[in-house]
């Protein structure tokens, strides 16, 4: 998929997931650089440890190139059915889920083979 298309699809799927619990606040932050990008989504829903763990597990599946470019294209296309984080997981470098004082933060890192999130010019 093209760069823009990937971002739109990923935002669609992660937003679908976040909106399932009807947050009163959601912030989407995108930091786009030449070799990679950082997508951060924050909401005001307090999730328990097991849900955070499950989210992180789904966002970091085994590397599956045979699935990412085919079934992965379904990410963000169905806004009515339940969201599926594994569709995102196949297309990103890694994803982190953390608890904030207000709710939950999801960090998605996407980039090429040369991509190194530590070299980002803007700090998290």
């Amino acid at each position, binding site marked *: 998929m093209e760069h823009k298309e990937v971002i739109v699809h990923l935002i669609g799927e992660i937003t679908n997931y976040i909106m399932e619990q009807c947050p009163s606040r959601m912030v989407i932050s995108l930091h786009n650089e030449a070799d990679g990008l950082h997508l951060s989504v924050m909401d005001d829903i307090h999730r328990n440890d097991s849900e955070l763990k499950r989210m992180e597990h789904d966002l970091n599946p085994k590397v599956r190139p*045979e699935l990412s470019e085919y079934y992965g294209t379904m990410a963000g296309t169905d806004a009515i059915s339940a969201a599926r984080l594994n569709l995102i997981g196949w297309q990103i470098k890694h994803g982190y889920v953390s608890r904030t004082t207000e709710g939950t933060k999801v960090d998605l890192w996407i980039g090429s083979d040369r991509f190194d999130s530590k070299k980002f010019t803007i700090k998290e």
Partner: protein
Amino acid sequence: MNNRNPLFIVSLIIVCILFVLAFTTEPPLDVLSGYYNILTHHGRLISDFSSIGGVGAVLLNVSIMGFLGLLIIQLAGVSLSGPTFASIMTIIGFSFFGKTPVNTAPIVFGVYLAAKLAGKSFKNYLIIALFGTAFGPITSYVANIPGLHPLVAILLGLLLGVIVGVLLPSLAIAMLRLHEGYNLYNVGFSCGFLGIFIASLFTAVGMELSIQVEWNTTFSLILTAIIPVVSLTLIIVGISLDGIKKSIAGLRAIQKLSGRLPADFTDLVSPGAALLNAGLLGLAGSIYVMSIGAVFSGPVIGALFTIIGFGTFGKHLKNVWPVVLGVLTATLISGKSPTAPGPLLALLFGTSLAPIAGEFGIVPGLLAGILHLVLVERTVIWHGGLVLYNNGFSGGLVATFIFAVSEWIKANKKKR
């Protein structure tokens, strides 16, 4: 990559056993001459290779195709998992009626070209390439056009196969969005769609595309035993991988999943539980075929192999039975025989719609089964039998219909 992968090892063992069986059933020369008949046949639906080439020849074709499929996966550098296991079992199954190394190679090459054109690795389109072999008959049908010089016909057939392969990834990706993963045979849906255009073109230039059924009705002990033996093997391997307790727990976990694409049971639960599930589905299918008194013909074995394959990638006993019951109900109401080729294949392949029952429940699953039987005998005429996954095409149409209506209902319920 796959040296210690249980799915790869069990697939390779199945392929090797089928190869050995090919030469133990009939004299080698008979097998080879029968295989020549298979390779030169058009392979359109429904061409039972066990009748066209004999039991030995069909087993040789099946084992060669299975081996080539595993080789492609290995060369692509992909570890065998639910979807790739499903594709190998589907290739093995359809090599009983339509797929040969000669008619499928151009399609795989075409998908490879599409990957290169898109600047991607072949492994990104591997699944489309493997399932895309459903278009095999298009190559062999064109290669057998009467009135053309044989060399010209063969070259035309190969070229058309490559063109179809190049077109497939774009269609397969787009068609996924129509049913959003509720039809497990998505490449079949895509092939059927493209097949309508090609069949229309063929008939426009006066080519003959009437449907003929070549169906083996002779009992063969080897053909009857293949699926039950493979199923039992998978059950034993599955249990031995995980142990009895963990296998049963895993099997229960699988029954709770909707099966909507892409549901890789080997990843979501475990390879052992997935193989156990696959074996149980194969056994259940075999019991059904035996109980209605149907013969294990090439297409029936093909359908059962496909069910086994998708036992690791979307199908389980709980999401399959409503669709099966729907097809059976429609068969009996319409006065058709459950052992007739159309209804029997519709029942076995209709399990492509299992995710509808898994996600929306029993009644939509039943409805999907009924609609599938009604539609599937019509869709084969649209593409002239050039696409082997006719049930995948019909399943895609049914899944799109049910998905669209259910999404509309859900969306408007939420608004209220």
